């Protein structure tokens, strides 16, 4: 008599095994390693006020890294994400100022404008079937030009006028750019936005139908379509998610400085992608996590500020930044390999 073989899907896996199989595991280990390293390398790193600075730096990247990670899991890129943040801030600021309206009007119209750009990206991608690299590179360049051209045509200079004395500014600032005092240390509200986005995105990915669609579209688009996944809608939705993140970041930029320079944001799109990749997203799509992107952003924040806290030579800053990120990613990769081997 032969023993009945149990279907492998019915096998019980231990919690430990489950944790090892998570895409963010490597990034968590990388973050812990970077944290321990700078705790020793920089005297001032462990102070609460310093950690608040690090968390702020991580949060402004992290807010964008979350939707960018979702998009990458869905198999696409968005090179326009960096300047879209600036576009969103500019739209909000100029609409409020030019109409002499309550700034909340600008904030909501800016949301519509930004989402429309996201829809445009998604629509162009799904209609033309061109690689997202090309489509969003086009949007990136167009937005860079629009940011400057429109700002100059409307405001007369390359930065917007201050909206700090307008109605609604103080309440909008509370929402997008205030500080929360915890035990005598001030934390920026962007940290809350970041955590909320991570939680929401994780819920979507792991607990909803949309999450399954995102993984399916990124894993194999044609197969997903064949089994009835609304591929086009999912892709457009992902670009709208990036636009939503850009809107939050853009409003933070506007309400913390009250005016916006039109040339900002160029180059950040790559840093968002880097954060998502350090966090375990595959460049080829179909694999990754939102929590991972948060740890990716945290690693980036800790390294970029840690180098300053450690008071290393400023001329070598970029070298150290690159080297530390590479090391963190190598550790990440190694941990994941080990985890897969134990499966």
């Amino acid at each position, binding site marked *: 008599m032969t023993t009945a073989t149990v279907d492998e899907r019915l096998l019980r896996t231990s919690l430990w095994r489950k944790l090892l199989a998570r895409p963010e595991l490597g990034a968590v280990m990388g973050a812990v390693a970077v944290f321990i390293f700078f705790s020793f390398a*920089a*005297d*001032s790193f462990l*102070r609460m006020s*310093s950690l608040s*600075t*690090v968390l*702020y*730096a991580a949060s*402004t*990247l992290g807010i964008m890294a979350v939707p960018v990670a979702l998009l990458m899991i869905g198999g696409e890129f968005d090179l326009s994400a960096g300047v879209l943040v600036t576009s969103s801030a500019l739209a909000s600021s100029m609409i*409020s*100022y*030019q*109409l*002499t*309206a*309550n700034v*909340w009007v600008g904030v*909501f*119209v800016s949301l*519509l404008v930004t989402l429309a750009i996201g829809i445009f990206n998604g629509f162009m991608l799904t209609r033309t079937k061109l690689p997202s690299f090309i489509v969003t590179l086009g949007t990136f360049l167009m937005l*860079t*030009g629009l*940011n*400057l051209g429109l*700002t100059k045509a409307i405001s*007369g*200079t*390359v*930065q917007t006028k*201050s909206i*700090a*004395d*307008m*109605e*609604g500014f103080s309440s909008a600032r509370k929402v997008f750019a205030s500080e929360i005092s915890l035990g005598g240390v*001030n934390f920026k509200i*962007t940290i809350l936005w970041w955590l909320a986005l991570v939680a929401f995105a994780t819920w979507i990915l792991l607990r909803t139908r949309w999450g399954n669609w995102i993984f399916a579209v990124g894993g194999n688009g044609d197969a997903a379509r064949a089994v009835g996944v609304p591929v086009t809608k999912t892709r457009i939705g992902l670009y709208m998610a990036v636009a939503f993140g850009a809107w939050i970041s853009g409003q*933070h*930029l506007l309400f*913390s*400085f009250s005016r916006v*320079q*039109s*040339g*900002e*944001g*160029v*180059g*950040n799109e790559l840093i968002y992608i880097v954060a998502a990749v350090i966090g375990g997203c595959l460049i080829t799509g179909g694999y990754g996590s939102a929590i991972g992107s948060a740890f990716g952003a945290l690693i980036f924040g800790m390294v*970029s*500020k840690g180098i*300053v*806290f450690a*008071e290393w030579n*400023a*001329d070598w*800053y*970029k070298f150290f930044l690159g080297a530390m990120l590479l090391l963190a990613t190598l550790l990440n990769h190694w941990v994941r390999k080990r985890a897969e081997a134990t499966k």
Partner: protein
Amino acid sequence: MRTRRTAAGIAAFAAAAVLVAGCSSSGGKDSEDKPEEGGGGKVSGPKLTIGMVTHSGKGDAFWDIVQKGAQAAADKDNVEFLYASDDQAQGQAQHVQSYIDKKVDGIIVTLAKPDAMKDVLGKAKAAGIPVITINSGGQFSKEYGALNHIGQDESVAGEAVGAELDKGSRKKALCVIHEQGNVSLEERCAGVKKAFGGDTENINVPGTDMPQTQSQIAAKLQATEGIDAIVTLNAGIAEAAIKAKGDAGSEAQVSTFDLNEAVTQQMKAKEIAFAVDQQPYLQGYLAVDGLWLYRNNLNVIGGGQQVLTGPAIVTEKDVAQLEKLTENGTR
């Protein structure tokens, strides 16, 4: 059908938002003074075409003021003014080449990356097109065959800041470089270090990302004890430095290169101690005027020597006079 209804709904929502939320009774466009129509005579003479090529990144407020000055002189001199910029040396040289091909009557160029401009300026000379250099790179101007140079000597300007810091009895300064590897920014910080009696440290920040710039400066203030002066090299970064100071609970004094509306407001609020103005408007204006004078009368402003437009130290006392001008974007 459904999508059309959704679109209409969004439009209606936006319109409603404008109506319901209503207008702001303070600030905004309605509070602006309406500009007066400027008169001013015009010169007669043949229409000239003058092209300017700078190393500006897109959307830099400083270069906007330069352009305004150049445009004002062009309007007065019956000149068609063309402008192009590229922060990459190669692109800048290509723009100059295209102006040579266009057979313009004069070229204005910056020498932030001098080596890359050498060949193309030689071609301009061969084509008989007069060149005036502005802003940075004055020491190369004559060598490359330009009529003269109109700008600010960056190290001299840095030294002026150092001296001013000494006057305020500062002990330790932080010089914030917002574009790694930019020669003129490094020269400014080197100038500060040379003239300042106390210590000077440099820090590199990502200038195109304000929140990251802010946290970078905050981290430095938290890490290094005793920094009592922050020197920023453009007006936008000064804003981030003021915020960073607040985040780090530092009492350091902020001063900055370049002047604009925001900086005058911050000087009024005593957030910025002083600003170093290199009069960008003048650089654009004099360069166009200089080429016009050369074309029409073979005059050379400054007799071929460098014409300095800065450093002029501006403090809170000057704010009252400068406020209107910075608002108009000409100072």
